[in-house]
């Protein structure tokens, strides 16, 4: 049997000659490294990859990937990526955005690219702050976050990126963490394999303006009690001793002690392929300290992409009337000849 050799890449192949200019200790470095690692395994040649971004610290990402790249304007990256997809059906397209770029100035585009299910992998680096503009509160900043523009603390309810994505009918929704390198790589690989819009929220530490905001999820001594790692087909268990679980009580999830409040069989079993996004939405709304925050793949379902439906419509038209030519372009209902 003839095996088709998949292209193999090294992290070096994917590195550009541009100096990386993020602040020392920024979570973006880890994401960049894991991205190169993940992409070296997905079997796609680098000329078949493109990175599109908007504006912000995260949006510098394309300059550091030796693939095709397009650093666009603030918030609008989904629109450029959509256009690129219409022109190039078989490119692997990644979109890198942040909480300000993706959920504030670009909130509208994010909703619509998800609803159209254009085949693009969206990574939202959530650091809950505006970093490039030097430290203003963002749409994901927690209530009370003190910044230069919120000296008394933020007075706004933070947006929940995954809840937003699920409400917009996203077909792939996941969360991971910048420093959990193994998990991050695995999620990136799964996003790469998804057909349709993939949406990945990455908790990302901003060393300068919002340091430690995700410490509860990264500090080894406490994170097991604060995070629930989703595994497809497995019960939702978490905690240092893996004795805590999530059970559904009516329409509300609750934390239970396994073996004390109930047995393992009473816990929610994770099924990422569930058509209905309701349960995934409930999980996306769980926040500490009352609940563990949920990481992993919430939802992964296959639905037609905009570009697939467009091609199907074109094929049907061609089957019916033939491929359009320049000559039949000008035909109209009423044509007359003057001799």
């Amino acid at each position: 049997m003839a095996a088709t050799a998949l292209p193999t890449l090294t992290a070096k192949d994917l590195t550009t000659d541009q100096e990386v200019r993020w602040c020392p200790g920024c979570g973006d470095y880890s994401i960049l490294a894991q991205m190169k690692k993940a992409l070296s395994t997905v079997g796609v040649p680098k000329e078949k990859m493109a990175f599109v971004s908007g504006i912000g610290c995260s949006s510098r990402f394309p300059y550091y990937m030796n693939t095709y790249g397009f650093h666009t304007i603030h918030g609008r990256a989904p629109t450029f990526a959509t256009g690129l997809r219409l022109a190039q059906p078989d490119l692997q397209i990644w979109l890198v955005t942040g909480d300000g770029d993706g959920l504030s100035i670009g909130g509208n585009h994010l909703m619509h690219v998800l609803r159209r299910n254009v085949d693009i992998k969206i990574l939202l680096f959530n650091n809950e702050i505006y970093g490039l503009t030097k430290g203003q509160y963002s749409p994901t900043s927690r209530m009370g976050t003190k910044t230069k523009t919120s000296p008394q603390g933020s007075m706004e309810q933070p947006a929940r990126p995954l809840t937003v994505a699920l409400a917009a009918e996203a077909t792939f929704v996941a969360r991971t963490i910048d420093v959990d390198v193994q998990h991050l790589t695995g999620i990136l690989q799964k996003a790469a394999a998804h057909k349709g819009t993939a949406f990945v929220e990455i908790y990302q530490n901003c060393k300068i303006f919002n340091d430690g905001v995700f410490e509860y999820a990264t500090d080894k001594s406490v994170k097991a009690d604060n995070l629930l790692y989703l595994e497809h087909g497995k019960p939702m268990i978490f905690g240092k001793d893996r004795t805590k679980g999530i059970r559904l009580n009516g329409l509300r999830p609750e934390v239970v002690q396994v073996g004390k409040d109930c047995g393992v069989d009473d816990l929610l079993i994770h099924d990422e392929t569930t058509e209905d996004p309701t349960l995934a939405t409930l999980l996306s709304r769980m926040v500490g300290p009352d609940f563990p925050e949920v990481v992993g793949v919430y939802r992964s379902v296959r639905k037609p992409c905009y570009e697939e439906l467009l091609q199907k419509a074109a094929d049907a038209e061609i089957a019916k009337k033939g491929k359009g030519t320049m000559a039949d372009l000008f035909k109209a209902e009423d044509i007359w000849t003057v001799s």
Partner: protein
Amino acid sequence: MTPPAGAGVAEPKSAARTTPATSVEVDSVTIRFAGDSGDGMQLAGTQFTNTSALFGNDIATFPDFPAEIRAPAGTLAGVSGFQVHFSSREVHTPGDVLDALVVMNPAALKTNLKDLKDGGVLIVNSDAFEDNDLKKAKYTVNPLEDGSLKGYKVVRVPVTKLTRESVKESGLTSPRDQDRCKNFFALGLVYWMFERPLDTTLKWIKDKFGKKPEHLPVLEANTRALKAGYNYGDTVEVMPVHYKVAKAPIEPGTYRKITGNEALALGLVAAAHAAGKTLVYSGYPITPASSVLEQLADMKRHGVKTLQAEDEIAACGVAIGASFGGAIGVTGTSGPGICLKSEAIGLAIMTELPLVILDIQRGGPSTGLPTKTEQADLLQAMFGRNGESPAAILAPQSPADCFDIAYEAVRIATRFMCPVFVLSDGYLANGSEPWKLPDVSKLAKIEITHPTEPNSDGTQFHENGDGTKGKYLPYKRDEYLSRPWAIPGTPGLEHRLGGIEKQDTTGNINYEPANHEHMIHTRWKKIENIAHVIPELAVHGPADAELLLIGWGGTYGSIRAACERAQKQGKKVAWAHLRHLNPMPKNTEAVLKRYKQVLVPELNSGQLCWLLRARYLVPAEGLNKVQGRPFLVSEIEAAIAEKLK
């Protein structure tokens, strides 16, 4: 008189005419159909146009409809009109004053009467002048009875009653449905008046309503109403006279009628065919540009991909993203949409990607006059972005010219790797004229090459080698300063584009002061280089002309007609029309400096005039109108007379 095809079917007839109507030969007629938005006046006007075009007249049309989709019936706000100028000569405008006006209600009379010439024919649906109708149109006395119409040839026709009578055996039973045939009755009467055959419209009715059994009563009713209107003219002596307009001497060829927006869509698709490319068009619904998106959405078998975007910005982003991917990226909108797209257009300028932006101008600022025409976005296209961000600007001069300009825009955008604005307007978009189908083999070639190999020989920066050998340099420029267009998917040419200032040649991020200035100048110079591939400005007029009229865009017809009339009277006037506004043709300055006086007619407060004065230091003066309506030929004629007195 020979009865027209299909007119011989028995209809309820009134007393037969005892004397035949006199026939008068005229060379040109302007007629307007006006009524409530629900009266089907656009349809009646379109049918009359098609019939006249097929008959062999030259034509130009202009629809005028309210911004409200369904204003309260019978009110002044709800009046919709369609004007047709048809002639045995070449025509360039839909006509200044009306020779004939058809009004279906008092509101239509009130809003349109001012355009009817003294002694013109006024056909009135006299059934629609009850107290309540008059009140809605804010008439205190009935204009049909107060003597105010005595300067016109008034033809009072009980259209509503006669239509109901004519369709009563059609199968349409409700008076409401029956009344919807009134436009066909009126159209039939007008066909009689101008000796037009009915067959084009009869065929249209059959094609439209003959396919489904439930529509057959509508087919029958409309057919009967049309014929009844015709026979009414033929048998009742209310119409004193009918008119003959002979065929026009039209260049041999195959023709169709085309509106500006139809021509834009076809021009874009033809260019994509010529280039062997996918056309990606993205727009957001906006008057008067939406019909371009609507048409292209139905042209998928021509390799057209459309996306109705979530907003104007997204539509522009989609087009630019498609260009990055190697397709022909186009977005279309009207003025308010251009404001929103400005930042994205700046990115296309900075990254030097091809992009075509259609701006179907309407009255501004802000929401302005959505359904009315204006030419007030020229300076927005020229300067309306942050930083110094030059783009090419083209403007079609007639509905049919929209085809050539759209095609030209794609050619320039891909040759010079830059955004190209197409400034059409509401008048061109909805107006129509006969269009001779182009000879495909004679269209300009659009040859696009995408590099497949690295383009650096390693000596870009130093003759002894600079380490770039074997690399792709995205901003390495050709003789016109255009850059190569390598597309994603090409092995070895991976590169990054972005909105940050870049080093020339390599495209690497670069903030050095001298580099920025160099790049600003290079982007300007590149746009100026377009002048090398466009035709020179043609001037029409006597060698000893003292006055030059120079215009752009949709005012072409009025300017040309006015100048030709003035020239016939021996006036020393010449005219020229700019289709390329940035850059302008190379000889523009020389042309301007040849004349003692330069007059710039524009439907704005003087935008081209401002550019000409600033750029060429000529004492050009403006002739300006900002009323949401095109120039009348007479207005320009008067200005010429004033200048040369």
